[in-house]
């Protein structure tokens, strides 16, 4: 069942339409990531849920009931900001205990709850410290503990990882995922980092210019984006323009544009959306890691190797097929082999189920 439902929300700040007709439902216990470039309206959406902003129109339901009439302090949301906003004049313990003052608990229950959270977050022994005496990771844990202490109906995370260095970010995002899974608290996580969103979310909502582009599981989002924006924003991809020449229930035949005019077989599998008709212009999304550098797959293309990029774990091969540029990924162990192919023509291939047709951009 859905825990939180946003219905057709609009919010404008002066001349900026921050949120333009967003509807989505957050399911009980899931971790939903709200991702998009900066200024896309994701933080505004979060602030609408928390109650810091009022929508111009639309409805927000918690458990089926409208909460628009409620002040932030009545909504029972837990929030963690990018800068954590730990109260600098309170100790770690006082920070965590602050929200417990406003729920009907006995003193003993409060103490127990704080102790439980300190333990859960691995903060035991730090309870008397001032926030400024903590490391960034510890501060984040305190912020999480503080937000979770009053058992919120929903946890809102506003880019809590973006101020951290890359390594710490990866550690902490795993910790957030583990914690969220253990506690089962419904969470909305706002981030501009698509990798972070894919890594921890049960479902990901991509926003652009105040609108919701797509809401689906990370895999679906990655492999079957609904719009060109999503395809470009999530991961790396090669977009090959072409025209549908044949459309069947589970497959398409597309003729690629350009000199080669190659025919490509596209398996659409169990896709639910309507397939493009014959004659329609489409773009085919081909992920770099799905390209085979040989002619062993069903679809083949003739290319010229332009350059090679060594990235440690993997390497990237920059290819050109006529006017079309392509990126292919290969294990870094194969780098030296392919080094010799620069400037040469090769054949690459891919399976029909590894390409995905995108509707033409509007």
């Amino acid at each position: 069942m859905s825990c939180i439902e946003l219905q057709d929300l609009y919010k404008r700040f002066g001349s900026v339409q921050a949120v333009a007709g967003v509807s989505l439902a957050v399911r009980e216990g899931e971790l939903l990531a709200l991702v998009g470039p900066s200024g896309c309206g994701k933080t505004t959406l979060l602030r609408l849920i928390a109650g810091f902003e009022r929508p111009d129109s639309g409805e927000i339901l918690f458990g089926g009931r409208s909460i628009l009439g409620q002040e932030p302090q009545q909504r029972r949301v837990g929030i963690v900001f990018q800068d954590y906003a730990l109260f600098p004049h309170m100790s770690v313990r006082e920070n965590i205990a602050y929200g417990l003052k406003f729920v009907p608990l006995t003193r003993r229950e409060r103490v127990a709850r704080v102790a439980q959270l300190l333990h859960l977050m691995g903060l035991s022994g730090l309870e008397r410290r001032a926030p400024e005496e903590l490391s960034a990771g510890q501060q984040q844990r305190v912020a999480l503990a503080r937000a979770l202490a009053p058992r919120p109906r929903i946890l809102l995370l506003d880019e809590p990882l973006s101020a951290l260095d890359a390594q710490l970010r990866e550690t902490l995002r795993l910790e957030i995922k583990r914690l969220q899974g253990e506690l089962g608290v419904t969470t909305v996580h706002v981030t501009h980092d698509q990798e972070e969103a894919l890594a921890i979310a049960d479902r990901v909502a991509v926003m652009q210019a105040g609108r919701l582009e797509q809401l689906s599981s990370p895999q679906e989002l990655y492999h079957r984006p609904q719009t060109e924006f999503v395809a470009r924003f999530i991961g790396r991809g090669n977009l090959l323009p072409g025209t549908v020449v044949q459309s069947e229930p589970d497959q398409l035949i597309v003729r690629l544009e350009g000199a080669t005019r190659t025919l490509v077989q596209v398996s659409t599998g169990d896709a639910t959306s309507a397939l493009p008709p014959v004659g329609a212009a489409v773009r085919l999304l081909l992920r770099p890691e799905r390209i085979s550098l040989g002619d062993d797959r069903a679809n083949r293309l003739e290319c010229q190797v332009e350059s090679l990029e060594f990235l440690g774990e993997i390497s990237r091969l920059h290819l050109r097929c006529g006017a079309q540029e392509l990126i292919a990924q290969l294990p870094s162990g194969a780098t030296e082999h392919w080094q010799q192919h620069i400037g040469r023509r090769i054949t690459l291939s891919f399976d029909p189920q590894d390409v995905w047709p995108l509707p033409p951009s509007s």
Partner: protein
Amino acid sequence: MGQDGSRQLTPLLRRAGRVTLIALPLLFLGLFFYYPLAGLVQSGLSSNTGFTLERLTRIFSDSYLRHVLLFTVEEALLSTLASVALGLPLAYLLTAYDFPGKRWIKSLTIVPFALPAITVALGFILVFGNNGALNRGLMALFHLSSPPLAILYSLQGIVLAHAFYNAPIVTRFVAAAWERLSPRYEESARALGAPRWRVFLNITLPMLMPALASGAALAFIYSFLSFPIVLALGGARFSTIEVEIYRRAIIQINYSGAAALATLELLIALLFTLGYLRLAARYARHLQLATPRPTRSLLTGPAGPRRWLIYAFIAASALLFVAPIAAVLLDSFSRTWQDQTVFTLDWYLAIFRPTYSSLIAASPLQSIWNSLSFAGASMVIALTLGTGLALNLTRRRFVGRSLLELLVMAPLGISSVALGLALLRTFVRPPLALSGHWIAIVIAHSILAIPFVIRAVRPALERLAPRLSEAAHALGASPARTTWEIVLPLIRPGLLTGAVFAFAISIAEMSATIMLTRPGLLTMPVAVYRFLATRQFGAASAMSVLLIAVIALAFVLIERSGERALRG
């Protein structure tokens, strides 16, 4: 070789700069504050036979002086309370809401603080007096035969006038801090379930504490040292220590008695300063800053009963802050003629006539020029010396830092009557024979303003997260460049507050000025005083209006140009 040379030279220069930054202000204070002060304290603590505490103990054994002492503390505490009660909501309105003309109002909040006490007293009598506009309005409205509100000539009249003066200080200090306070703290607390008033009490207030403590401490000290207001609105039955000092020194030719009282007054004021420094240090924290804080429209923002509460508060504030000034303005355009009050330009024409110029021993234009140039010079000196001291006090930890802090804050606790007296006695003799020179007045004003600048700049410096300047250092900027390009722009509100207050202190100062001035060096407040003292009440009002106009204009200009200079 050149490379090596400069590499060795730079730290040397840097250290020289650092030493200068702290040595020069101290030299200035030593020469022009501590040296004269030593003479004053010596007079207070010595007799023919040498050192004695007799004059001090005599103060405590005199029941009248004990009464004066207690009244002064009581009056100052109540005034501080009133200033905070008024200044804090005003700071909130300025921080949380937008309204047309807000920038102007912000620039002008400080005007009351800069008004000479005699002008304020005049305005208060015209508005809150028994025959004032408020009482006459109520009498007409409710058909009363006698004035219903006895406000003046009592403790509450003094407290109200002190709130008029000092609430702007509180507002100014608190608003500067509030504007830069990240709203995330309050939002976090609200999300945790705290109702608005709890958020304010638990979160906002503690974070504003350094600024609030600064403002309140200044309000206390200013009320504690207040003198012409108490004289004018309280009368002899409500004397403060400062009034007694004035009486002894200026009229009763009892310099050593005045010096003893001034010493005691200084001790008490320093005690409070010390307590407040402790308090401020306790609350000093590195906070996240946000600029700008989101605001709502005052016209459409507040809703329900909240809205009416806000509007009522604004109306009451307008009555307190605007009405007295408006009343002086009206008064300057009216005179009694054949038992009628009639409109007239006589007073304005009068103050520009040569006979009136000889009356105040200067032309009004000359006194405007004097006031502005003294204030400008004092502002530059106090801002430079004060910021230098504040940077040192905030950044570095060294032995005796708290002692140094107390030393540089001490001028705050000195009565301007006593300071004027001490300076006068110092300046008539070598080695500092500055008597009758404009520099003497500028020095007195600068000394009074330096602690204010420090107070205004320090909270801003303290709230500055050290990682900001560390970041700049890391990017290769020298400490001087870091200060200039990172620190100063970030503490802009503090600097502006300091500048504005230094200017205000100078332009309003009368007690010390009147002792150090000579014909030709007359300032505007002294001119107002001269007119009043010679029964020229209309001319005094006209001169006051001129002063108010000059002050208002100066503040708007300072803020605008200051914002531009520091932004650019």
